[in-house]
């Protein structure tokens, strides 16, 4: 059976124009050939009779036995960590409720990535835009890092080079600049993207390119002793931005050096706010490819604060240093891990020697290695659901396109909560 307008939750763009064919338990993407997208859907496929059962210490168990075992681990826990958080809205709602009930900490598998943009938002606010605005309004786009185009496979086709645009020729045929450092390996697929002007600049890092561009924006040209090729390119780019109607800076925080990424995102915001004094300029931070945006939105409205959230005192507390989930595991500050991940069988929990409960994708590679594994259906395949897009504005529906008998993650989490 064929389904149209299917939403793909495997990157933050949440493209919802997919056609997917479902035969029994097999799922095949029909109208998008990007290997990342195809592979993501293939990961959902089974042969008949392969639906896994829950496992307790690697041995098959009933759902109830697995829930009882998980509940016992949580009852014995003094400091549980609920992480992964790679799921749809309802899964995240129930996971936050579970964390609150057990007085634990909830964080996302990529919590440190979420924090980069969140902390800049907390400190200085941001100027942002959404996908349709870029598609229709932007006449100038500056992309920071070639990896952005790799990790968001259809950004170029769907947003940057639209067949039609609400604006004019300049918004349809955008000036697109890609900035990266010179010694970065050439990414072959960029050669096929003819609309892009690719500047590979002499610079120690992508971060330093952003910082240099801020300097160019903030300072008169005369202040620079020497103008080398890199600087000249940035000076010309600044002029192009000033002559454009609507410039969008696109970045993915994961492309920056992890130890200074927050500073670099702050620099992006400073640049945009500075340029806004004269022209329209906006940012489009990309992320959410492991459902980070969904998890963080739910946590923020339910608890009033962003991830990570700790409930030891009964009230939610956000402290990204004390309650960084991955660091808690490294420092042995958590004694039980609940790992929730529904979209991808490779999203294994970090290696840890504490009791681990995994609730999620039925083909999880780690299933036999954890204390309790409860397979669930995949939102957007086996269950209806909702997911938040990278721009923090659009929420897309996930369809139920397969009948598999797998319980939904939110049902499993909810049942687990009731046992506590």
């Amino acid at each position, binding site marked *: 059976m064929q389904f149209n307008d299917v939403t793909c939750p495997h990157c933050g763009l949440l493209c919802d124009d997919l056609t997917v064919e479902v035969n029994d338990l097999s799922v095949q993407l029909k109208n998008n050939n990007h290997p990342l997208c195809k592979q993501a859907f293939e990961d959902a496929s089974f042969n008949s009779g392969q639906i896994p059962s829950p496992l307790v210490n690697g041995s098959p168990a009933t759902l109830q036995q697995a829930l009882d075992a998980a509940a016992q681990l949580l009852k014995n826990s003094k400091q549980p960590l609920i992480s992964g958080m790679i799921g749809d809205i309802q899964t995240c709602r129930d996971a936050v409720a579970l964390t609150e009930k057990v007085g634990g900490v909830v964080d996302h598998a990529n919590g440190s990535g979420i924090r980069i943009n969140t902390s800049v938002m907390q400190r200085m606010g941001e100027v942002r835009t959404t996908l349709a605005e870029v598609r229709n309004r932007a006449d100038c786009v500056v992309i920071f890092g070639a990896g952005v185009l790799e990790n968001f496979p259809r950004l170029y086709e769907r947003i940057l080079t639209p067949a039609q645009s609400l604006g004019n020729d300049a918004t349809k045929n955008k000036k697109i600049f890609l900035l990266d450092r010179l010694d970065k390996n050439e990414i072959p697929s960029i050669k096929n993207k003819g609309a892009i002007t690719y500047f590979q600049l002499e610079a120690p890092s992508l971060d330093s390119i952003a910082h240099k561009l801020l300097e160019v924006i903030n300072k008169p040209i005369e202040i620079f002793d020497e103008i080398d090729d890199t600087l000249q390119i940035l000076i010309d780019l600044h002029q192009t931005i000033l002559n454009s109607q609507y410039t969008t800076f696109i970045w993915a925080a994961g492309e920056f050096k992890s130890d200074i990424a927050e500073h670099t995102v702050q620099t992006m915001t400073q640049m945009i706010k500075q340029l806004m004094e004269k022209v*329209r300029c906006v940012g489009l931070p990309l992320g959410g490819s492991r459902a980070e945006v969904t998890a963080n939105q739910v946590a923020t409205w339910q608890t009033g604060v962003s991830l990570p959230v700790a409930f030891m*005192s009964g009230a939610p507390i956000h402290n990204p240093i004390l309650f960084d989930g991955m660091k808690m595991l490294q420092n042995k500050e958590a004694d039980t891990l609940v790992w929730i991940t529904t979209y991808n069988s490779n999203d294994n929990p970090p290696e840890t020697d504490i009791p681990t409960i995994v609730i999620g994708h039925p083909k999880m590679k780690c299933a036999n290695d954890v204390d309790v594994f409860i397979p669930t259906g995949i939102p957007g395949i086996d269950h209806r659901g909702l997911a938040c897009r990278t721009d923090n504005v659009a929420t897309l*529906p996930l369809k139920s396109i397969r009948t598999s008998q797998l319980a939904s993650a939110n049902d499993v989490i909810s049942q687990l909560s009731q046992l506590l």
Partner: protein
Amino acid sequence: MVIKLSGGKLYDPAHKIDGQVTDLYIVDDKISKTAPANKKIDHSYAIDDCIVMAGAIDMHTHIGGGKVNIARTMMLEDQHAHPDARSGKFRSGNGHIVPSTFSTGYRYAEMGYTACFEPAVLPVNARQAHMEMADTPMIDKGGYVLLGNDDFLLRMIQQGASQTAVNDYVAWLLDATQCIGVKVVNPGGIHAFKYNQRRLDVDEISPSGVTPRKILTVLSKAVHDLGIPHPLHVHASNLGIPGNFESTLSTMTAAEGLPIHLTHIQFHSYGTEGDHKFSSAACQIAEAINNQPNITADVGQIMFGQTITASGDTMMQYFGHEHANPKKWTIMDIECEAGCGVIPFKYRDKSFVNALQWAIGLEIFIQVNDPWRVLLTTDHPNGAPFTSYPHLIKLLMNRSFRNDVLSAIHPEAQQISNLASMEREYSLYEIAIMTRAAPAKILGLTDHGHLGDGAKANITIYRKQDDIEQMFTKPIMVFKNGELVVENGKVTKTVQGITHVVKPEFDRSIEKPLKKYFDDYQTIAFNNFRISSDEMAECIGGEIQIHPCKLN
């Protein structure tokens, strides 16, 4: 279940009951004036010396959607300063200025509110707004969908589309976003800001090729033609600009006599007189409201202290960003529909401008004669958090208290304001109008906001106290749909409200150009944009109640 409430003084303006002692019965989830035949009374409460009103309704409060989450993120210190620990079956949360969803529901219920309406639902963000409201317990909810800066409508108007076609689009969007009303924010201005235009007057042609006046005229007619009970909800042009009262008066005339609701009108009632070139135009605005029966308003009163402003009006929020306190601000352009701006703000009684803003709001309350047409709001959180309502009610009901506060504000603001000489004190009956009967009436909620036979048993009971602020802060009992949910100002039972919507009829042929628009320009498939009623129930968590529209 039958509950008897005996001996209470009823304030029920919808039935012209002004403090009359009357017994009241709750039969299941409805109110009855008489004891039901052949049914025993399960509970009886003697409420002598108590004041009985319908559950209060906040018809303009920002409680759901992306901008609220941005505000929560930006106000971390305030969130942590006001923790709500989990207690038994009650969820935890935090925040005073922009509380988490559970805390929002509990705080509203504890003040006797039983319904709240989110006034700025961006179509593309409607799912999130409804999800946040679904996670807000205790109260009924509803939303007004934002129109008037969306490229689809602006192009329709610019290309001379018929009023009928516009009506079909408006009705389609209401259905697709599960909303109860239509809101326009700075008509055409948010769109113009995307073209770097920093100001747009009512009769100025915007980059879209149309004037704000035209947008207002077309939309107010659409709302009227479709028979949507709530008039077009208008956030007028030039918010916060000295001298903006003139564009507010122009906005009123743009409706051409059809009903419109001007929201947070305090922010739109500024003159340019005096040394500071900033003065009160409350008198002109109140007079205009008094003389034009098609107009209703809510005030958007400011209160002194820290808050955060969250608005769709990117143009004017950007204008105000230099006053951000603390110094941080967020602006977003959104999906060819609208935008949002989120800016923390600290209103100070020793600031001339802030002090005068405070006085202007009260001057409007006092000078608009008809309480059915001036509703009590702070535009939460923009003027102040909703928890300041009891304080605001005291300011309205107690002149000497009002003048005491006035005497402490910036001296020049005191001098310039006529507030000290205004003698009017609101009565309990008038407060019941502006917080219950009037919002229910202008939203078309026929079984809410009153205590008549068959009304939903949303009832708030206050113990009479000399200090009116204390009284309104802590009702002794609140019933939601007939269930006792608040006792002595504390939530004792969690209930889930419903979502009020309208679904006016329309010609489905509008879907053809809409589908083409989505295919050509948008980033969501047309078929995925619409929120179905079963999605509301199954995925979002908001069961809907449809209110009738009477086509005109």
